[in-house]
Structure formats: structure tokens, C-alpha cells
């Protein structure tokens, strides 16, 4: 039983990274209607920026702050420099653009920082908590707190301010939004900035566990996609819960379902996601959008 709980807990902690990345995916999806496949790579950039700052002698927390801000700036730049030239509402073009950004960012990361994997210090120190036979590392606890805080900030931003409303309006119907005085360029880049800031948190939370390498977010991105489907990409709580569930299901599946093991463990999680979306296409927390004649 302890083992089951411990493995579930480990999965939950792994899921934190998925959750953070899925949150970023969700923000950019709500804010721009784009499924941004380069979100993982953007998170990697943030992690490298933080790492470089640490190398330059900046303490870890300011370094992380710099990475978050720089990511937001990068997001804005990407929107203004690239994304806005692609016709919106062209799902496949936007997705291809995401792949293009992924390849491009990956190349830039590799050129600037090299492909050699590196260690990344945990900003939370290296202590361990034992509780009722279960074990949590400082990194795991800190990651949870950081991601929860990010989710909270996003929730406040989206519900307490008109930020979310503007973002969604511009994404959903740029023409009508313009008639109401919303500058779509401004808000779309704001959406990108917010998403990239969230992505930066994902990168910084992931780096100490996963190590820094240009490909570090490839698998988490896949999981984050599944998380977004499971929870409902339109729901901030949904994507986070989705990420955690995916983490747990993957860990449990790998351990307890015969024949899955460490490589097919994702099958269990994915099968459940697919079953859920077949029954509830908008995901667990998503709201079905009404289509009527």
C-alpha cells in the first residue's frame, strides 16, 4: 500500500510539470486559438536563460524571475515577428507554424547553449520530507507550490480582471473585437506573453529533475497535450488537474499493469484520456461549445 501511494505520489509530482506546460498551452489556446506545439521548446529556452543567469553569478530566484520575464518578452516578440503573419483560423497552418517554431527554437537553443545535457540546481534546496512512510523531495514540494501559485495568478488574471475576457474575445472573433475597440495585435501578444511566462515556470520546475537539454520538454509536451485534452483546454483548473492525473496514471500503469513497463506505461494514461474524450469531447472540466443551426 505504501508503495502504491508512493508511486502515485511520484506520478503526481511528475505530473506537475505536465500541468504547468498544459496550463501554458491552454493560455495560448484561449488567447490565440493556436495549439502551440513549440510551447515545450519555449519552456526550454526559459530554463536555459535561468541557467545562464545562474552561471553568470545571479542567485537562483532572481535568475528565475529574469527567465520568466524574458520568456514573456520572447513570446511577444514571436507573436509580433512571426505568428501574426499567419492567417488566424487556419488550424493546420497554425499547427505547422508551431512545428516550425519548435524546430527553429530547438536549433537556436542548440547553437547558443549546445546539445550537451547539463544539470540544473534545484531552487528549493535538497531536503526531503518523510510523512507516514511517504517521501517528498524539496524539489517536488517546491514545484507543486510554484505551479499552484502560477495557476492562481492565471486564475486571478482571467477572472478578476478583464484580461481573460479580452484575450478570448480577440481569439474567438477578431473582427467583432475590433469593432469593440480591442486591438487584436496587442492582446494576442499579451496572450503569448502570458503563456510563455507560464511555460517558463514549467521549464524551471522541470529542469532540476529532467536536466537541461534541448529535447528535455519533448515528452512532457506530449503529456501536456494529453492533459489538456483530458481536463479541457479551455479550463485552467482542468488542464492542471489533467496533468496531475496523467502523471499518476502513467506511474501507476507502469507499475501495476502487467506488460506495460517503463516504455508503454503511457498507454494506460492515454487510453483513459481517449476514452474520456470519446464520451466528453470537451474534457472533464471543459464546457461543450454549443453548435446550432
Amino acid at each position: 500500500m505504501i508503495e502504491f501511494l508512493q508511486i502515485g505520489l511520484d506520478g503526481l509530482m511528475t505530473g506537475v510539470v505536465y500541468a504547468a506546460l498544459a496550463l501554458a498551452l491552454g493560455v495560448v489556446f484561449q488567447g490565440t486559438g493556436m495549439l502551440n506545439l513549440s510551447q515545450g521548446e519555449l519552456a526550454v529556452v526559459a530554463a536555459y536563460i535561468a541557467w545562464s543567469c545562474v552561471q553568470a553569478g545571479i542567485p537562483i530566484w532572481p535568475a528565475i524571475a529574469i527567465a520568466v520575464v524574458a520568456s514573456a518578452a520572447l513570446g511577444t516578440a514571436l507573436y509580433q515577428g512571426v505568428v501574426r503573419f499567419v492567417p488566424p483560423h487556419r488550424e493546420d497552418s497554425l499547427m505547422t507554424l508551431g512545428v516550425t517554431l519548435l524546430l527553429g527554437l530547438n536549433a537556436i537553443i542548440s547553437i547558443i547553449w549546445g546539445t550537451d545535457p547539463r544539470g540544473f540546481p534545484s531552487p528549493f534546496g535538497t531536503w526531503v520530507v518523510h510523512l507516514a512512510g511517504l517521501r517528498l523531495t524539496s524539489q517536488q514540494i517546491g514545484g507543486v507550490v510554484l505551479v499552484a501559485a502560477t495557476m492562481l495568478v492565471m486564475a486571478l488574471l482571467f477572472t478578476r480582471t478583464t484580461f481573460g475576457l479580452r484575450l478570448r474575445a480577440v481569439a474567438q472573433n477578431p473582427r467583432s473585437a475590433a469593432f469593440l475597440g480591442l486591438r487584436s495585435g496587442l492582446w494576442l501578444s499579451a496572450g503569448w506573453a502570458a503563456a510563455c511566462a507560464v511555460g517558463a515556470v514549467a521549464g524551471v520546475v522541470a529542469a532540476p529533475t529532467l536536466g537541461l537539454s534541448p529535447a528535455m520538454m519533448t515528452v512532457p509536451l506530449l503529456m501536456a497535450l494529453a492533459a489538456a485534452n483530458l481536463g479541457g483546454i479551455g479550463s485552467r483548473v482542468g488542464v492542471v488537474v489533467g496533468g496531475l492525473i496523467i502523471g499518476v496514471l502513467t506511474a501507476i500503469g507502469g507499475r501495476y499493469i502487467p506488460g506495460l513497463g517503463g516504455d508503454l506505461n503511457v498507454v494506460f494514461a492515454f487510453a483513459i484520456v481517449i476514452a474520456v474524450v470519446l464520451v466528453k469531447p470537451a474534457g472533464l472540466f471543459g464546457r461543450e461549445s454549443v453548435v446550432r443551426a
Partner: protein
Amino acid sequence: MSAPVVHTEPTGRATAPDIRPRYRTPGFWTAVVAVAIAVAVPFLVSDYDLFNLSRVAAVAIGVASLNLLTGFSGQVSLGQGATFGIGGYAAMMAIRYLEWPVWVALLAAIAVGALVGFVIGLPAVRMGGFNLGLLTIVIAALFPVLLYRFSDFTGGQAGVTLAAPAFPSPTDSLTDAQWSYLVVLTLLVLTIAFLDQLVARRTGRALSLIRAGRILAVSNGVDVERLKLQFFVISSVLAALGGAIFAFVLGLVVPESYPLVFSITLLVASVVGGSRSWIGAILGAAMVVYLPSLASSVIPGEASAYLAQLVFAVVLGLCVIVASSGIAGAGRRLASSIERVLRERRATAPPTPPSTTREEIR
């Protein structure tokens, strides 16, 4: 009934626009010329180039199958590479373990492709864009893992290889590479002719309706699920065929050939080439085959591989931005605007009779 305001040129037609026979469309003749050139190519270039061209042709079949799915029936798949790979494995294993002849092995690949298409298609046609994206990306991600997992069966890392060329030249006057290229080219042309017919007329219109929205489609009598499933299966069949041909060209199948990235690359090729165009499929395939090595050959020095990747990404990005309907779409637009300019120049020469001015046609 009062006629509508028309701000474009009047057609003045009194009857339904004719169904133009294929041989009267410019596209048909472009295709004929292209095929003629393609047939002449093996006698002009080296075997090495033919190998690459054969790869392009095989990948083009895969991209075309994806065009059918994405461009025409509106289902974006991120997993076509897996089906492509399944076709390759099916054909190679049929030859290697069952010792079936090559052509029968191709049929086996087709059958397996149909089965896979049906199994994936059943849930897929019930899913919308985002969910379908996940389903297909999962399939693409799991495929290589499964290949390793069942390595007794699939050969694991060593994969399955052919001991002899799949399409050996029957005559001494052609090298194996030349012959194989011609065979692959023929299959590509047949595939495209097939697809071009398939999306014409009534089915083509049904597909437009489906892309425009479910309610519109069913209100016009289109059985959306059924048609989508049919197209999912056909698309898988062609992907499997392309994969089998690709495997024959390469002479082997190994898991590394079919990572998730490959599936995504196929989608990129489809979009960049032009997902509603068959020429686009070939252009897209040529792009993914040639551009990476081209980019690495023009960029010398340290870190060249990643600069090359960056160049690749920039070129893709430019294509997506400049030509939102793909390179083929941009080409078509360019051609039609040239045509229009020419036409206008011709039209402005003689004084236009007043009875045909725009205002008058109401």
C-alpha cells in the same frame, strides 16, 4: 426577379457550366508534361539522385494520403507517419518471413493499411480537431516503442531488411535504380490519378460540405461519419502503400525511421506543399527529403547542423506565412493573376462596347 449587383465580369452563360473533360483542363496537361519529364529523368541523372527521387516519390504518396485526410476531409492527423511505417513493416515482413512476392507484399501492406485505418478511424471520425490530434499523435508516439517492444517479431533495432532490390531491373539496358525509380514513379502517378478522381464531383462536394460544418453537411444529405470513415480508410491504405514503397526503396525498415517527428514532418510537408493539391504533396515531399541536406550542404562550419535546421525552419515558416494554401496554392494564385493581367491587357486594347460595362448588367 431583380438581378443582383455584380462587380465581377459577367459570364453571360445561359446554361450550366460544362463538366470539362479532363484532357481540356490546363492541370491535366501540366501533369502530362510533368510526368513526361519525370520519365526522362532517370536517363539524365545518377543512381544516387534516383535514389533520392524515389524517396521523394514514396514520401509524396504518404503526403498525398495526408492531403486527402487533412486538406479534403478536414481531419488533421499527426499520426500518418505511423501508418506509413506500418505499411512498410507489413510489406517487408511479408517478403522476409512469408516470402511473398513483392507485388503481393504491396497488397498485404494495403490490406493492413485498410485495417489500421478502420480501427483508428472508428473513434477518429467521432472526434473533433484537438482530440483527433491527440489520438493520432499518441499513435505516432507509440509506434516506435511498440516496434522495440515486440522486437522478436519486428527485428527490433535491426529491423527487417531486403536481401535483394525489391524492383530488380528486368532488362540490362536499365540499372536497378533506374527501373525502381520508374516503378515508384508509376505508382505515384497512379495514386495521384486515383486521388484526383476520388475528390472530384459528388464526393468532392460532400467533402466541402463536411469541412464547412456538420450541420450544413447532414442537412444536405451527407452521411458525415460514413464518408469520413471511408476517407480515413482510403487515406490509411495509401499511406501504407507509400510506406511499403519507401521501405522497398530504402531496402529496410527500422524503428528509427518512424519517430513522432516523422509523422509531424509529413503534416508539415502536406501544409507547406499545399494540402489541397497533389502537386503540393510532391513539392512538400521534395522539401522534406531535400531541404535538410541542402541546408546542411550550403552552411559550412561549426554547428552547421543546427544552422541548417534553423534554415529549414525559416524556410518552412516563410512558406506558411507567404503561402497559406501551400506552395502549390501560391503558384496557382500567381498563375491566375498573370493570366488575369494578360487577359486585361488584351481586353483593354479594343474599346469596350458600352453595352457590356459593369453597371449595365443589372
